């Protein structure tokens, strides 16, 4: 089955089983998102892709596309909502872009620019999250984690290792690794794992290759994340 729905008034084709976000992406239309990734089953946790469909708010990444569905995305209301969500993600962790190896390649930062987030607005929580530098090839800087679970999904579904999982609840939810010691070195992670490359922010970093591409020449320095697909940065 095939069909079309409308996104901000213009038609988007879809085929059976696609979500609104997938169909929009195929049509070269950008809906801001963080936890969705074309290679993985969507789960709708970051909520940055929230759209309005027939008067109801829904995450575009889990909303099934349906014939004739009228979807709003680029409205002031939704931009304001997404800005709020990105601000909440920023104040939840410890994000210092100028000193981050991922600056310019970071999707949180890029979405922040695309949504014109100019301040944090909310009080920062300044959590205490120690680094894990135990692994010979990979560094974990939990300060930047946005809990998108992409590494969890990649490690379980692609690498078949389940190196990562989530522990705790509510604001204490955090990324954990599959070892009694809690140290990455004691897991089966290898630097070539899919889970290592999938992090949209700067948590999972390969050691020994910092700043190989100078700031100013990185993915989203060349073109913003919301640029038309032929120009947009690909991480």
């Amino acid at each position: 089955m095939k069909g079309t729905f409308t996104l901000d008034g213009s038609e988007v084709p879809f085929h059976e089983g696609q979500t609104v976000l997938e169909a929009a992406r195929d049509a070269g239309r950008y809906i801001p998102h963080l936890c969705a990734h074309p290679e993985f089953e969507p789960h709708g946790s970051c909520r940055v892709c929230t759209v309005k469909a027939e008067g109801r708010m829904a995450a575009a990444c889990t909303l099934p596309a349906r014939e004739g569905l009228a979807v709003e995305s680029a409205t002031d209301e939704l931009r304001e909502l997404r800005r709020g969500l990105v601000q909440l993600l920023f104040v939840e962790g410890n994000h210092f872009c100028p000193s981050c190896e991922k600056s310019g390649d970071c999707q949180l930062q890029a979405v922040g620019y695309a949504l014109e987030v100019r301040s944090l607005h909310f009080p920062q929580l300044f959590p205490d999250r120690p680094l894990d530098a135990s692994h010979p090839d990979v560094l974990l800087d939990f300060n930047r984690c946005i809990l998108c679970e992409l590494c969890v999904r990649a490690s379980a579904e692609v690498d078949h290792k389940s190196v990562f999982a989530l522990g705790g609840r509510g604001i204490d939810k955090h990324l954990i690794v599959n070892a009694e010691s809690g140290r990455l070195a004691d897991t089966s992670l290898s630097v070539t794992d899919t889970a290592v490359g999938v992090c949209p922010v700067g948590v999972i970093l390969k050691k020994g290759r910092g700043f190989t591409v100078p700031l100013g020449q990185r993915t989203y320095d060349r073109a913003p994340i919301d640029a038309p697909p032929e120009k947009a940065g690909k991480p």
Partner: protein
Amino acid sequence: MSPAELSQLLHRHHGDPNRLLQMLREVQAAAGWVSPEVITELAKGLTLPRARVEGVATFYTLLATRPRGEYQVLFADNIIERFHGSVALRERLCAALGVAPGALRPDGRVSVGTTSCIGLSDQPASLLVNGLAIARLTVERVDAIAALIGQRAPLDQWPAELFHVDEPIRRAGLLLGAHLEPGAAVRAALARSSEALLEELKRSKLRGRGGAGFSTHDKWRAARDAPGPTRFVVCNADEGEPGTFKDRTLLRRQLDAVLDGMTVAAHAIGAQRGFIYLRGEYLFIAPAIEAALAARRAAHLLGRDVLGRTGFDFDLELHLGAGAYVCGEESALLESLEGRRGIPRRRPPYPVTHGYLQRPTVVNNVETFASVAHVALAGGARFAELGTERSTGTRVHSVSGDCARPGLYELPMGASVRELLDACGAEAPIQAVQVGGPSRTLLSPRELDRALCFEDLPSAGAFMVFGPQRDLLEVVASFARFFAHESCGFCTPCRVGTTQLQGAVDALVGGRGTRRDVRHALRLCALMRDASHCGLGTTAGRPFMQLYEKFKPTIERSLSSLEFRPTFDLDEALAPARALTGRDDERAHLEDP
């Protein structure tokens, strides 16, 4: 726990990963905490990734992944309990035991912390000690508890009277006034075909009592019509909404009606297995449920060929939660039942087609199943005579707060708020009434003629009365703290928003609030309402929004006149540096700007 004990535990649960939470509960009960070594061994025994077991163990409040002492005391930190002096009683117990709040005493004997409402706000203040409830706390009872812990008396040697829980049924109706023989409703149901039974249910117009009010008939028919040979019936006995305790009473006084209702459901939809998911805080009810299940098996009300009906095989299991309000949401409950973190599922698909183990599943509230028993016995038309056009039957209200007679009140659907206030002897003048708990409606005195039914005020049964002496901001702050504590953390708006909202409301309560805090709070409420993954997040901002809409002067009075309040004290920030350098002289401080 020794390796032998662990291996017995695994064996008892057939090495079934779906039973992980039940195993963790048993480890907690036996060892007092779930150690990293036990997590590793359980993961090996169940061939699960260790991190998954750790993820489950760290999700539930009543599981400790650090030593919490031989005696683990958790005070219920609900606003009703606070108004009955729970904070002072907690401090008294801490002082008597020489332990800091929330910390483990250095000798490893005891810790005293807090948890959310434990379903005893009709007899506050209350606490859990090693999972068992103690209600009606007074200075004397707290001192007695301190002495018992001081003597290191084993829990089973504590006076039984301490653990007595009242069931103050103030007004009984169809459900609470019934005297049903075990199995009477099942016999009545088996006299009809499952199709005829569903028709009776349709005629009754019964709607689910969990709060959402979905048609029970429609739910059951959808589950019956879903493809596949295996079906499940699940009783949601995870009432966690602060101020709700009616399921406690129904399970202790009308258990056979509830179990009959579940068996009737099995007949109607063709289910073979069922679960009672009991909130962990109701551990004290578990033995009676287990005994009733055993008695029903002996009486052929459960098991193979129920009541001699060939091919009607149905059995029930009791599962215990471990302290997570979010598991009251039906899909999170199913996740928990499958031994995982209680994260609400993405919907569709719905549990009626993809429930427990992705099989068709009916999940209903305790009160719904009790009502079903009466529909099966007396027919749908009789049931529909009670209540209103679109809300039939009765409703059991859990009444607490500033009234002479807190307890259980069963009224026909559609009764007015005022009627219930009069019945419970509410203290005049009423300042506010919270109907349905924090996630529902805050009523001002101008709204007391509203009706308690789905058409007007849907409720999961909580009814809290606030007299003139109460600070409503403190009430809302308590609700904000509750949602922050109970957010599962899955989605951004609820995970971060509930904590931010708690901060903003706390600032207002402390008299440090500014208009900016109010604007922040309102923006957070809207964000959570619009963007959250499940009902917990979408309703978490309601208490503050309703306070703002209906009780604006309460907020205005609390504001300091400032538009801006510094959140950061530069001199304070130098304190660690002063401590490190051992200096506290004038020049180690910043001058006042």
